[in-house]
């Protein structure tokens, strides 16, 4: 199997290179887009600027903002829609009068939300908000009012969650998702090769006519498939290390927390949970593969299995889904949730024990079923 390029790619290439490369690229592209949005030269039409000299002065002093005052109102919407303009601000004629009389004035902002960066709306809104805050402050001072009058209740936030807990809750769901997906992907190609591949090559008959018993043959295949699945999951963890290590934008303390979370003891703990899940993948993959008459048929039969695996793994990533007596019994979902609690350092022994019981039972049943399945003549020589 170690000479099969596809298997090697799925086991080493994908988790170690592609995955970190993919995530680093996504993060860097996002950062670049945010930077681009902030530094983009915007073309903004301002109508009725004469009615708001102070606001106009603020707009004009803003960097990378080109103001156009000679465009008529009838054209601004069309020009914004066809992206000749990035946006437009329409100030009412009575703006100054309303402000001076301590009334509320309205400015209309024309923008195109489908424009990917949404830079015009964000930057103009920020200027308006700042200008409005300055007017309110001036009014409070002039009227000799207590500034706290307008903030009846102030919330002082105090987060008792440690950085590790917060990180585990927000990003921790992603890690088990990786283990599950890569454990599954890593075991599928060997399973295909050692079942349907053997049939297609004709080597299955050679093996079956040797003194090795069927039990030995199927168990040998099972352990090879499982080994590849577990190795792929482990390499995926290495991929996460590389990803965390090479992300320049990650804050130092967050990086330290992540590295601490991925300590050897925790990884070993998590791998003891990954092991039975991979055993389940190996048994199911092998059973399907051995039933199929060809490699192609096995591939098409395994495709729906992706959804069965991915769905509980994705549910485990959703906020609000927690490890309890019910979720601890649901295979794959329980692995995802248990990993989150292990990473956060909040794992409850009784729930973890239930997860072990659920996963090892599933692994045991699937291995037993796979061995029984392999012993059926109708499975091996289906035609």
């Amino acid at each position, binding site marked *: 199997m170690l000479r*099969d390029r596809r298997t090697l790619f799925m086991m080493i290439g994908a988790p170690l290179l592609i995955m970190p490369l993919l995530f680093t690229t996504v993060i860097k592209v996002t950062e670049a887009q945010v930077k681009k949005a902030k530094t983009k030269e915007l073309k903004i039409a301002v109508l009725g600027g004469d009615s708001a000299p102070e606001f106009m002065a603020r707009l004009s002093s803003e960097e990378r903002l080109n103001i156009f005052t000679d465009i008529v109102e009838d054209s601004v919407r069309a020009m914004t829609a066809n992206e000749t303009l990035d946006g437009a601000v329409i100030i009412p004629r009575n703006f100054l009068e309303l402000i001076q009389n301590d009334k509320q004035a309205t400015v209309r902002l024309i923008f195109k939300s489908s424009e990917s960066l949404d830079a015009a709306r964000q930057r103009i809104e920020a200027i308006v908000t700042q200008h409005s805050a300055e007017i309110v402050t001036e009014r409070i001072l002039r009227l000799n009012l207590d500034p706290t009058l307008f903030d009846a209740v102030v919330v002082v936030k105090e987060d008792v969650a440690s950085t590790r807990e917060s990180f585990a809750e927000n990003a921790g769901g992603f890690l088990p998702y990786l283990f599950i997906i890569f454990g599954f992907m890593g075991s599928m190609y060997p399973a295909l090769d050692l079942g349907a591949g053997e049939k297609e090559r004709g*080597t299955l*008959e050679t093996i079956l*006519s*040797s*003194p090795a018993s069927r039990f030995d043959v199927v168990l040998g295949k099972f352990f090879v498939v499982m080994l590849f699945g577990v190795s792929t999951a482990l390499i995926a963890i290495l991929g996460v290390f590389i990803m965390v290590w090479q992300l320049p934008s990650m804050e130092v303390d967050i990086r330290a927390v992540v590295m601490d979370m991925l300590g050897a003891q925790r990884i070993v703990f998590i791998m003891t949970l990954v092991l039975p899940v991979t055993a389940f993948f190996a048994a199911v993959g092998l059973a399907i593969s051995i039933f199929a008459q060809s490699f192609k048929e096995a591939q098409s039969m395994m495709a729906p299995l992706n959804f069965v695996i991915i769905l509980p793994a994705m549910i485990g990533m959703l906020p609000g889904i927690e490890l309890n007596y019910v979720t601890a019994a649901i295979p794959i979902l329980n692995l995802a949730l248990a990993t989150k609690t292990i990473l956060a350092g909040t794992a409850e022994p009784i729930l973890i024990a239930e997860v072990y019981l659920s996963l090892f039972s599933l692994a045991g049943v699937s291995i037993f079923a796979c061995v029984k399945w392999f012993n059926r*003549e109708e499975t091996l020589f289906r035609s």
Partner: protein
Amino acid sequence: MIKVSNLSKDFKLNRKQRREHGDGQMNRKTLRAVDSISFECQPGRVFCLIGPNGAGKTTTLRIISTMLKPTEGSVTVANFDTLENPKEVRRNIGFMTAQTALYDRLTPTEMVQYIADLYGMQASHFEERKNRIFSMLDMHSFADRRIARLSSGMKQKTSIARTIIHDPSVVVFDEPTTGLDIMTARRIIELIRSCREEGKTVIFSTHHMSELRLLCDDLAIIHGGKLYFQGTTEQFEAEMKSDSYEDEFVRLVGGA
């Protein structure tokens, strides 16, 4: 020696297969692939199982090599019963089909080593046997090249080597020449002859009557799971009522 006694094999039919087998089969849950057949293959002789596709040849050979279990009857190979001592039966068997049945990613040396490991061969015995076979088949020049990069002739030689590496006393060939070119088919025929000369029990299936003349000492004609003739090649020729082997075959099974 192989002894087949009153051997029958039924296969379970699923709903789709019952439909495909026609209305008459809709109420039957099984299909009888082999029906009460008996024959013996002696050491140092080549036994041919002749019949058209679907006659029950492969099923019979798979039962002999313990891949399938008989529904009725019994099979003994080298005095071991296939049900009671399947492991010993397999230890005495070499199995070969027209498919080379090789792992592309291994070299011929690794391939035969893998098979030798499955048979639990001693390292020294393996080395000696491997060198003898590789010399006999002129395989040393490509022994360490990946099988994927070998020509079909080289692959066939490797397939022969892996079939006989453990020096089996019984060699089973399931349609070994089907779909092969003349040169490769001839190499297989030479192998079958050399197995006979070494005193091995050889059974091979074919649907080519022409291979009768080339190889067979004993033969059985099988059709629809039943035997229509069993005896020596000389007996078959003596009892022939047609001009050719093919015509005689059609005459024998014609009413079936």
